[in-house]
């Protein structure tokens, strides 16, 4: 899927001489730092779980696994839409790229709506962040991820709206940046879904 259009990236690539970065190096650094922070959160969760195994497993049974599954499928599909948008942008097909970006925004919106519904269900069942340590982690991890989703939706919406404005090189880089961040949000959810909803 990479083509001649991505050659401009050589200037911004790392000086190691092998391979090219898709998007800006600054965003790669930001994403990696965020990854490390989430890695620490996962580690603290697992340590806490090892101290209250029964409580964590019992609390997990109150989660709606089906909603988690649907949200995972939604995010995976939206990630694919962004892959297609990047691919189209590199071919200078801005109409197609814009359409795929809007598809990703629509799916991301679907994820957000389902997540809000899930929070509503929990709060309606008198389950909140203070219920126990499992739900403290549940609300914290999913809400921070939810904020990432909202940030991604906003960024992709702004990008999709102005997809035909600016130099081709900058627009391709912007779409690649949006893609990098959105895929990261997807990878995070893949782990959050497994840790909170499935493993036990």
């Amino acid at each position, binding site marked *: 899927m990479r083509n001649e259009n991505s050659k401009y990236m050589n200037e911004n690539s790392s000086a190691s001489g092998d391979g090219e970065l898709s998007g800006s190096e600054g965003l790669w650094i930001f994403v990696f730092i965020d990854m490390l922070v989430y890695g620490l959160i996962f580690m603290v969760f*697992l340590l806490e779980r090892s101290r209250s195994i029964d409580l964590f497993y019992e609390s997990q049974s109150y989660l709606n696994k089906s909603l988690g599954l649907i949200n995972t499928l939604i995010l995976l599909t939206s990630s694919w839409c962004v892959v297609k948008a990047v691919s189209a942008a590199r071919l200078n097909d801005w109409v197609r790229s814009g359409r795929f970006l809007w598809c990703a925004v629509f799916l991301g919106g679907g994820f957000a709506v389902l997540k809000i519904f899930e929070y509503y269900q929990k709060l309606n069942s008198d389950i909140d962040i203070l219920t126990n340590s499992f739900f403290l982690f549940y609300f914290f991890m999913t809400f921070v991820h939810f904020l990432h989703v909202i940030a991604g939706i906003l960024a992709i919406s702004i990008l999709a709206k102005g997809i035909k404005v600016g130099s081709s090189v900058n627009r391709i880089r912007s779409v690649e940046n949006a893609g990098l961040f959105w895929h990261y949000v997807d990878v995070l959810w893949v782990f959050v879904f497994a840790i909170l909803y*499935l493993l036990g």
Partner: protein
Amino acid sequence: MLIEKNTYILFFLVMLTLLSFFLIEDAAGEGWTRWASYIVVIVTTFKARLIILNFMEVKHAPKKWRLMYETWYISIGMMLLIAEVMTATVNV
């Protein structure tokens, strides 16, 4: 119409997600829940690998970036696996 590699990857990711979900659902209350958890950890780590290498295009990135990103998901996967094994040991 030629289907792109990334579309196949999406189908594969969906299949792996459904496999993890139904495996855990099926194993609930059965004697092999622990083994199902191990499989889910491995499948989840593999899904992360597919997304990071192909969708994020880390496989085209300079070596240092590839090393950093690959180290991350492998570390998380190992951490999960160790946690599951230790939990099983405690339960026994």
